[in-house]
């Protein structure tokens, strides 16, 4: 069962002035972080349940919590997956999605089955270094998502076999 109360409590605790300004002891930092992570864990279940109801399907939704360092075990290991993008704003937005992947050619289609232009680029050397051994994605899949107001849209991603002679991920040779 998902709930938002755990996160609500964690955020309430983190309203202490030490948490807001970062003037707490290191042990307390760890405690705040643990509470917030536990709250977000429960919220993820809540969001997954809500999406299941809204989409009328039951899926094991996964949240990529380490996208900033190009780590997402699901997108790295699966050859086919769906990406649901939810927009909480009251106006349509266009957002760029970057997902860590291990293939070099992907096909992305939107909810109407239309092909969405995408690009696969190599993960930068700095990102590989800061991952510190976590995650093995060598590339990032990039595409633009147009999402309706206070709503969501879904993309289907499939890994393709690179055709002979086709260009691979964009080269990052220093110039």
């Amino acid at each position: 069962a998902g709930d938002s109360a755990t996160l609500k409590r964690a955020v309430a605790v983190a309203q202490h002035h030490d948490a807001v300004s970062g003037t707490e002891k290191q042990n307390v930092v760890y405690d705040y972080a643990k509470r917030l992570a536990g709250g977000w864990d429960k919220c993820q279940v809540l969001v997954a349940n809500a999406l299941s109801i809204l989409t009328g399907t039951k899926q094991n939704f996964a949240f990529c919590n380490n996208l900033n360092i190009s780590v997402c075990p699901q997108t790295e290991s699966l050859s086919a997956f769906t990406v649901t993008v939810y927009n909480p704003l009251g106006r349509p937005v266009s957002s760029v999605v970057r997902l860590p992947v291990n293939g070099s050619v992907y096909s992305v289609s939107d909810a109407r089955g239309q092909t969405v232009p995408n690009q696969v680029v190599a993960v930068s050397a700095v990102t590989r270094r800061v991952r510190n051994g976590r995650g093995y994605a060598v590339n990032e899949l990039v595409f633009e998502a147009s999402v309706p107001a206070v709503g969501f849209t879904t993309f289907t991603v499939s890994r393709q076999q690179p055709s002979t002679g086709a260009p691979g991920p964009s080269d990052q040779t220093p110039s």
Partner: protein
Amino acid sequence: DQTPSIQNKHIRVRFDPVTGLISGIDNLEKNLSLPVTHNFYWYTGSKGDYRSGQTSGAYIFRPVEGKPYPMAANASIYKVQTAMFEEIHQNFSSWCSQVVRLHRNQRMVELEWTVGPIPLADSRGKEIISRFDTPLKTDGLFYTDSNGREILQRRRDYRPTWHFNQTEPVAGNYYPVNTRIFIRDGKFQLSVLTDRSQGGSSIEDGSLELMVHRRLIFDDGRGVGEALNEPGEDGKGLVVRGKHLLFLDTPSASGQLHRLAAEQQYMAPLVVVAGGTGAAYRTS
């Protein structure tokens, strides 16, 4: 390239071919061109001096020098160019790098910085800033937000409600930046959105800086009882990565730009992944 640059139909960012640093930003729609030099710098955290025994710590920002040290004179760069985006990767040192990115349809420049682990081998605490220098005549004024709501005008070495005697020329001019900071003159406005609360200031006219990371070796004696020196998982110190979104426009047009973008930062789209290709979607 003779003059490395990245651009889309809205914005162009130019880089100095010798130093690899950002050298200018052009708003192609409005035909605005502003020389902008960007670099990372660091202040040395104070361990107390003859004026005061106050050290830099979790509560206190008290740099030794009035002017920070540049992270590097040059950044090594390389460019990644695709149909959807262009980016230039800048490497300033073994612990400081940045990706300057322009997506095809975006009106802002995305600066994704990675800083740390901050080395302490020289026994000096360091407070790292990202600084933009422009020729804008800002007359000591800059602007920061108040918790993402009202924008407040800040004036260097001045407080609106009392006669202020400035004793800390850098720290005394730092203000909270929860979502944005900007400088402007009659023609240009340079706005920076943050992805987290940071400290920021404009220490000289036309300059704008944000503190992105800090690691210190003394307790500041204000109650926390320990130095701000988290070694991290590997004992070398924390690495932080974040984003700054940069806008160059006229003062009259900038408000709409940075308010909408900040809203989208705060309520960013949520990406959820599921295995398989069954479209999780009903037209209703």
